[in-house]
């Protein structure tokens, strides 16, 4: 269950090959790669900086993977998230899941990404022609999270400010 926070880029083929090496019980591999877009909220994005909370980041990703493994019968999970300076076209995140059958891998991969978007302590700061700005959390990400029966606890929605931990899912 490798989890990597790194500034370096990653290679999808290499990572997937490593994940399923010597695992003949694997029948399905689902991988998601998130990349940097050149436009956000109508403005051209020249570059961005990804900040995180070292220590908590790894713990929260581990908790997310543990929850996925409790829900679905998975063989292995890999999460790579980059931090530091990034520019359009760059890869940001890789989530790869292996399982015996495709249903589990598809569901778990999407679950992990939805969870990561609202729970893992990463923050994006964009450079645009109007200057630098911190990216706002998206309500759509909370809604994606809610599909799994979990309240994100992310402020920005009406009910989410100052939630006690039992309501954070």
């Amino acid at each position, binding site marked *: 269950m490798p989890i990597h926070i790194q500034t370096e880029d990653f290679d999808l083929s290499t990572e997937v090959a490593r994940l399923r090496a010597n695992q003949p019980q694997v029948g399905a591999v689902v991988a998601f790669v998130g990349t940097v877009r050149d436009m956000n909220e109508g403005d051209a994005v020249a570059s961005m900086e990804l900040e995180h909370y070292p220590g908590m980041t790894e713990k929260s990703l581990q908790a997310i993977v543990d929850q996925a493994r409790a829900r679905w019968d998975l063989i292995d999970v890999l999460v790579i998230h980059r931090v530091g300076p990034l520019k359009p076209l760059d890869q940001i995140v890789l989530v790869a899941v292996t399982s015996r059958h495709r249903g589990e891998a598809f569901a778990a991969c999407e679950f992990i990404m939805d969870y*990561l978007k*609202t729970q*893992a302590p990463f*923050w994006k700061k964009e450079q645009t022609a109007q200057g630098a700005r911190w990216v706002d959390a998206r309500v759509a990400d909370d809604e994606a999270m809610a599909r799994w029966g979990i309240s994100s*606890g992310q402020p920005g929605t009406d009910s989410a400010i*100052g939630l006690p931990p039992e309501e954070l899912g």
Partner: protein
Amino acid sequence: MNIQIRFFASVREALGTAQEGVDLPEHVHTVGEVRDFLRQRGGVWAEVLAEGRALRMAYNQQMAGVATPVAEGGEVAFFPPVTGG
């Protein structure tokens, strides 16, 4: 009680500090009370940590709520809603 307090992203920038050790008064026992205590510094502290502001809290590197208890040597963090992925 002595704790470490950490700030990230826009909260860190607005406050102009990433981390500090704080000696809490005796009546401060929870993450929410730490937030109230820091807000009493006034100025940008009152603004950034105001109730109703989109702010997330963590205690010992786990998401926390206002009622989460804090203990000697603990680590409280304040940051905006997360935007990774």
